[in-house]
């Protein structure tokens, strides 16, 4: 067994309980792997992101400028952190940063930092407004989705055959159930302000939510799939507990899609399952989910597999998947000396002692 003694930078170390980022869970997967003996650098966007302070998961923590501040600011920050930390591999974990990272990949790699990312075309194909086309590739159905650019849609949507409730979504992130025109208009304004235009509306599908996460090797193979049924969710619909499952229909649909577009990198496949076991594709996320630690529970360390792919090392075989493993999330208070907070605010980051 090889042991990887490398420095890995992981974004998305935010962890508000109702909607945590996946970064800390990805860090935890690496930290607990017997194949990893390296350093982990947590990268956050807010001085209150807990991953910037948690020694058990990160060896250092730094702030990044928000993706909206532009490519130059991002590259400059990464360059500065790289000078300090000598990053070997960068694992982005948030939807909103993916377009920039994918675009800047040659420049990131030029610095000597390895990544394992989808191509710009692959990323475009899984955009939420491309859902109908991508569902066809997976061979499953999806609820109708429509692009809108004006809140007035909600007041005349019935003329176009739409009815409430419906889901309002940002192009990159966020989804809200709305039950009337006023709620729709408010959700539209909020999402447009945060994620820009266009905004998407999607018909509501009845059923239970199931998710699959895996890594695409870029050659058309799906590696290490882990499937889960949400057992409890937060007010924002994020998984608070779940149980691993093994469903061949979900496996086939996901594998078919990954093969069709030769997906490169981690992904999460979100589907609704009706009472007859039929699936409808809700969306595809180009990253690991926040519940990724369940993969360690079922013996398939996917972040470790992604790290090996980024390092161009053989991934090896995965253990057979296991159904019936639960995760139950909890929130925890961490005590942080003011001096550490000061370091993050004033210097943009620090080493965790």
């Amino acid at each position, binding site marked *: 067994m090889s042991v990887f003694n490398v420095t890995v930078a992981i974004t998305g170390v935010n962890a508000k309980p109702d909607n945590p980022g996946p970064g800390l869970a990805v860090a935890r997967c690496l930290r607990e792997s017997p194949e990893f003996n390296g350093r982990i650098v947590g990268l956050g966007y807010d001085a209150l992101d807990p991953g910037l302070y948690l020694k058990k998961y990160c060896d250092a923590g730094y702030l990044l400028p928000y993706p909206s501040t532009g490519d130059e600011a991002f590259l400059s920050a990464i360059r500065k952190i790289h000078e300090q930390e000598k990053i070997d591999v960068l694992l982005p974990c948030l939807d909103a940063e993916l377009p920039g990272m994918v675009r800047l990949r040659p420049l990131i790699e030029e610095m000597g930092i390895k990544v394992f990312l989808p191509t710009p075309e692959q990323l475009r194909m899984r955009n939420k407004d491309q859902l109908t086309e991508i569902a066809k590739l997976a061979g499953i159905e999806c609820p109708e989705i429509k692009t809108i650019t004006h809140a007035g849609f909600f007041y005349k949507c019935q003329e176009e055959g739409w009815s409430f409730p419906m889901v309002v979504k940002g192009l990159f992130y966020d989804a809200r159930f709305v039950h009337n025109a006023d709620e729709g208009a408010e959700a539209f304004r909020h999402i447009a302000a945060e994620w820009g235009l266009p905004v998407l509306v999607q018909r509501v599908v009845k059923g239970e939510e199931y998710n699959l996460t895996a890594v695409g090797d870029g050659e058309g193979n799906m590696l290490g799939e882990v499937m889960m049924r949400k057992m409890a969710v937060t007010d924002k619909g994020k998984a608070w507990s779940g149980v691993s499952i093994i469903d061949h229909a979900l496996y086939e649909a996901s594998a078919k899609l990954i093969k069709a577009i030769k997906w490169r990198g981690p992904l999460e496949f979100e589907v609704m399952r009706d009472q007859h076991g039929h699936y409808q594709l809700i969306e595809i996320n180009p990253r690991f989910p926040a519940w990724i630690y369940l993969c360690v529970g079922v013996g398939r360390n996917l972040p470790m597999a992604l790290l090996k792919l980024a390092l161009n090392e053989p991934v090896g075989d995965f253990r057979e998947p296991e159904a*019936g493993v639960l995760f139950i999330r909890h929130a925890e208070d961490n005590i942080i000396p003011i001096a550490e907070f000061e370091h993050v605010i004033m210097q943009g980051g620090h080493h965790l002692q």
Partner: protein
Amino acid sequence: MVDSEQTGVTSSSIPSAESLRRLAISESGFVFDPTSGHHFTVNETGLVLLRHLQQNQDLSSILNAVTQEYNVSHRDLERDVLEFLSLLREFVGEQ
């Protein structure tokens, strides 16, 4: 496909053998479906029925076996089994 015309309990009321065989059934009566991720609990009689159903799709022989084992009337058992099978079909997504 025998059984009672009065209650409507037929072998077609039984969930498919494939669906039943995938269920993980604990001695405690805890039942987990690894495909749907659902779970439910059964009492001792439900556990006996499930064990029979996993190995045998012939309802009349199952009813005969359970009638003898529990000393209940065939008619009462059929009624209860019909209800149990309906819940079971719903649980495994065949309704």
